[in-house]
């Protein structure tokens, strides 16, 4: 599949060096001179319609290795690589052409002290203003075990405001707001009743897990992968384990693959039910909200019955699974999940007949397909605006093998209502996948006998409930993690969040927020 891409590159970019690395995983690498970077990436993103996954910055003893990772729905993956001597910290920004890279470059500027020339917006991002100038925690010289002197935060942070007309004002919401919510700040720029623009400020929950992982055994990093975004723990451990399994060239038993699929889909169902419960609550439709909440609790109990933990912690392990599950239990969990599915169908019917509910979702929080693509939005939020991207199909991995027949629900409107329908629809697809997995589940061991990993580097990915997630891992001979880079769906989708929160009535804000199904923890890391 890579052949046509290779031909295209050699024909149009003669100066770019193509290399194929094989290490359990074929990685096509295109090495660029900084001068060619912007045009090359523009061509991949705008002309070749490749997707942007993430920016991986690595600092070796002698040089910077900077990679933009692209992929295509047809299965190609390309790492665009630039090497710089360590003393050189300036490189061209691709964000003006590949808008999806905007936040990635801002993050790398903060954490590594790199300068992306031509980037329109650098400054206060992952590290808020009170961090001492020149602190770049991802640099290898930075000691992560130190605790920083408590700098006083400025409580009056203001974004750069676009509106300067008379009567306009900026209204902050957060970082602590509503009854139970993840910490994040939103500045709503308003004129009169209408909000014209929303600027989110994130990273209040930044825990620096990529740095914390450095020097730890992969088995221990797994604990971080499981806990940085606890509501999608299985998807993230799956991506991380897959990266490690690629490095160690570990064969996963067939039964483990099948169980992983079952559990990953179970997690998706639970995640989407939870998103729907929040959506119902945001519209103050009390009966629907409490029905959805009952179903959410039921899914948590099912997860616990299956794995011993309500959020499936402790199940995934490098090489397979940490436990086997008796057939009978699988059947029971499937059956009860299907019952939840049935009740959801009923709930959807009721909701779609409630005009007061629909009025609050239809044409609210609209994102155009073009904008969603420019921001490389992922998951249900992207599929609601007609982008049929799903890593289970685009880059079939592990348990999904040949997933070309996978049904990927998409909608066109890109509004809150479309996103709600996607959540409902995907639950039914997941239930079907669970059923299929159980019917064909092979017997045998659930973990590879030897799960040792040595030195290497690999990319692992999975379709998390919120969209595709990418984990880049590099290890040393002892299997300790040297670099762990995460490209999460919430990070991509928060980047595009403002698109949904433009020109709306103030009271719609909680609904727009809920309909996106975003996680702050997953984005802030």
């Amino acid at each position, binding site marked *: 599949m890579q052949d046509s891409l290779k031909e295209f590159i050699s024909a149009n970019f003669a100066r770019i060096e193509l290399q194929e690395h094989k290490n359990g995983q074929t990685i096509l690498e295109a090495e660029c001179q900084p001068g060619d970077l912007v045009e090359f990436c523009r061509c991949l993103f705008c002309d070749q319609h490749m997707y942007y996954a993430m920016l991986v910055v690595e600092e070796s003893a002698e040089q910077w290795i900077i990679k933009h990772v692209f992929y295509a729905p047809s299965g190609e993956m390309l790492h665009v690589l630039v090497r710089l001597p360590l003393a050189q910290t300036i490189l061209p920004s691709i964000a003006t052409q590949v808008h999806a890279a905007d936040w990635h470059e801002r993050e790398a500027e903060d954490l590594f002290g790199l300068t992306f020339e031509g980037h329109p917006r650098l400054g206060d991002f992952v590290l808020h203003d009170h961090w001492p100038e020149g602190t770049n*925690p991802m640099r290898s010289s930075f*000691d*992560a*075990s130190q*605790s*920083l002197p*408590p700098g*006083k*935060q400025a*409580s009056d942070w203001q974004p750069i405001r676009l509106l300067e007309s008379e009567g306009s004002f900026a209204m902050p919401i957060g970082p*602590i707001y*509503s*009854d*139970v919510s*993840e*910490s994040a700040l939103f500045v709503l720029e308003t004129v009169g009743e209408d909000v014209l623009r929303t600027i989110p400020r994130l990273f*209040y*929950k*930044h*825990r*620096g897990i990529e740095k*914390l992982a450095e020097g730890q055994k992969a088995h221990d990093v797994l*604990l*971080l992968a*499981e*806990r940085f*975004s*606890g*509501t999608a*723990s299985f998807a993230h451990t799956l991506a991380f384990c897959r990266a490690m399994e690629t490095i160690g060239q570990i064969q996963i038993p067939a039964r483990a693959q099948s169980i992983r699929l079952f559990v990953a889909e179970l997690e998706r169902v639970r995640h989407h039910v939870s998103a729907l419960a929040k959506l119902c609550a945001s519209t103050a*439709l*009390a*009966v*629907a909200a*409490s*029905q959805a*909440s*009952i179903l*959410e*609790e039921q899914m*948590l*109990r*099912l997860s*616990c*019955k299956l794995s*011993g*933990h*309500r*959020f499936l*912690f*402790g*199940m995934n392990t490098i090489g397979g699974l*940490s*436990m086997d599950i008796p057939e009978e239990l699988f059947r029971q969990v499937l059956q009860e999940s299907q019952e939840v599915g049935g009740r959801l169908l009923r709930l959807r019917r009721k909701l779609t*007949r*409630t005009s*007061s509910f629909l009025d609050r979702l239809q044409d609210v929080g609209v994102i155009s397909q073009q904008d969603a693509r420019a921001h490389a939005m992922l998951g249900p939020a992207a599929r609601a605006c007609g982008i049929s991207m799903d890593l289970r199909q685009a880059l079939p991995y592990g348990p999904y093998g040949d997933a070309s027949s996978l049904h990927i629900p998409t909608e066109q409107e890109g509004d809150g209502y479309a996103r709600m329908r996607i959540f409902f629809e995907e639950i039914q697809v997941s239930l079907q996948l669970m059923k299929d997995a159980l019917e064909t589940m092979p017997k045998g061991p659930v973990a590879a006998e030897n799960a040792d990993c040595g030195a290497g580097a690999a990319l692992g990915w999975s379709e998390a409930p919120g969209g595709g997630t990418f984990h880049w891992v590099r290890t040393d001979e002892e299997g300790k993690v040297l670099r762990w880079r995460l490209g999460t769906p919430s990070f991509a989708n928060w980047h595009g969040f403002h698109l949904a929160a433009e020109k709306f009535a103030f009271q719609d804000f909680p609904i727009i927020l809920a309909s996106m199904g975003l*996680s702050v*923890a997953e984005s*802030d890391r």
Partner: protein
Amino acid sequence: MSRWLTEGLLTHKPTTAYPARPESTAGISPGLPVPSSELTGQALEQLVSMCRVGALSKEKNTLGFDDGRCIHCMRCKGKSPKELEWDDSYEWARLTKLGEKNLAKLSASFKASLYIRTIDAGACAACLTEISLLAGPNYNMHRLGFFMTPTPRKADVLLVSGPVTDHMRDHLLEAYDSMPEPKRVIAVGACAMTGGVFGPSFTCAAGLSDMIPVDVVVPGCPPPPLALLHALLVLTGRKQQAEKIRALGSDRS
């Protein structure tokens, strides 16, 4: 609208009977390890090395367990040569020394109804999900006089989850300061108790303890909703009271 009314009336209300009766439905809690004194020698060493966060330790040749460190990685469950037992409990909350002292000073009205402000100080969202379910039909904390409030100025209790990131520290302190007296604090989960897998580090504190006074701690990663209900009852002394009454009753019979 009337359709929703009938729908609501027809919905079976699954509210737990807890605290009047213990809840035993499957899946309500992951349980916790029960260290037994029978574990010795190699089995003991093996278990201790299995626990990557130091929740299990060797104490004078028997197994020590620090529940505040347990991150529910489940690695010590049913895997050692001599199995470590797990229970399916959820009454995990306990008063700190300060909490005990403070409890004596509480008025009856404080005990009867509480306004709670939840703060996410860098939690992974699993803890928050469990907190949010408290107000749902399964746990319905309102029946016990517990309510959420978005304003710290109206709050009696601060419910904090997460290791306390550098970016949330000042906001947490500000919320605490703006609460009226008497005010109480509950540390929710391994993160808020000890920093969990994240802290202490360059971005996170070791949980709440050295930042604001804590009255009640709830172990777990995350503590399930019933453990949180238990924490609220313990904070107000209502759990202890109920137990006393129950003990009196059984004395008589």
